[in-house]
């Protein structure tokens, strides 16, 4: 076994939106009433692997196949004791480098 460091940039291979609240085991912070959806996709890290990931983008119109994407770490939810749970995600390169993720 050897550790291989993955690239933190790649291109968007495909994507979709999640527009209904997933059933358990989904552990996001939303309820039915305030669920506004999220985007997800596969980012191809050149000559390495494609990674399934949430995408930091508002709508499906904000992304396109082949788009350059950058790894970001974003808040996911908060534990009852106040601990913030973070997750990996990918954002369009222009957004990730010009002011950070939302």
């Amino acid at each position, binding site marked *: 076994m050897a550790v291989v460091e993955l690239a933190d940039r790649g291109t968007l291979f*495909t994507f*979709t*939106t*999640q*527009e209904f609240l997933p059933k358990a085991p989904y552990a996001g912070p939303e309820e039915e009433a305030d669920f506004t959806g999220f985007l997800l996709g596969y980012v191809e890290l*050149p000559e390495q692997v*494609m990674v*399934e990931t949430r995408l930091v983008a508002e709508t499906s119109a904000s992304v396109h196949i082949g788009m350059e994407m950058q790894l970001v770490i974003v808040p996911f939810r908060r534990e009852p004791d106040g601990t913030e749970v973070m997750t990996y995600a990918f954002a369009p390169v222009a957004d990730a480098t010009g002011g950070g993720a939302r």
Partner: protein
Amino acid sequence: MNVAIVGVGIHPFGRFDGVTGLDLGAFAVRRALRDAGVAWTDVQFAIGGSLAGLLPGSDESVQTDQLVNVLGLSGVPFTNVHNGCATAGSALAMAAALVESGQHDLGVCVGFDRHARGHFNATPEQSGLPHWYGDLGFMVTTQFFAMKIQRYMHDFGITRDTLARVAAKNYRNGALNPNAWRQKPLSERDILESRMLNDPLTQYMLCSPDEGAAAVVVCRAEDAHRYADRPVFLRSVALRTRTFGSFEVFAPWLAVDRGHSPTVDAAAACFEQAGIAPGDVDVVQLQDSEAGAEIMHMAETGLCADGEQEAMIAAGVTDIGGAIPVNTDGGLLANGEPIGASGMRQVHEIVLQLRGDAGARQVPGGPTVGFTQVYGAPGVSCCTLLTT
């Protein structure tokens, strides 16, 4: 292959209160036995398929062999099959092998399920995945379907209008099928304007889990005319799992070197075993978990080349009156998906079509060759070829 189907039975697909999965399964078996003119006590082996145990909220009747408590304690060897979305196909493959090997002469194959409403919610651990994968909201099968067709549309010029045409065709066919769950035709506009669930897939482009059962009676081909005036012959059945590089549901990662779907391998093996070419097929049942799946499966099974679907579907080639009718009973879109029963429903429909018993949805011209394909989690496909 030396196997005939001499009886078929189905319990309508949909939502039913006050029944169990076993009730549905027993109903389908009794119908199939009556169709073949045999009694439960004549049956030398039985194989049942159900996937309920993997899916929270689904009916508890996982052990399909409990059917003996309903149909009769005849001592029949009964095997339970539990093999993902290829459960019904695997049951049929096993039944065919038992007859082909000469171990038994006459058997019953049944599939049934009753699933909870809404999307399937398997747990990550069942798929060998870490818990965080479910936490993040990735254990949703429809995301996979959407992402696969999104890429396919980009690569091969398939449009959203074509997705809607496929769905409208399947609801139109469902309206001609008294056993279908959805019997109301929907326009392409209704479909396109329904709620977006996973871009590009709207609500009416996606099938829903539901309840249902289907059964077949199989026997040695040389005995077929003892039971049926118009037997249908099972020419081949092929089951395949994913190979490296295929794009599958519940995949935290994919290989950069792209491979092909297990459907490609299962279909190729099925045609080769039977010595039948895709161009010889008169009527087809494809896995349409969503409208895009039917489009991609047309190419994966060898019925057309990638990208040809756009023009073919616009020209009505896959309609009941077209050159390659697909999902004449409405497919999964109109029937829903009780997983254990779904592949058996496909075979049931092909048997009716080849006998000329499909009523208002009968393919004209006397079809003689039929093909079925299921595909799904965890990256499995099963195909069959049937002839008169």
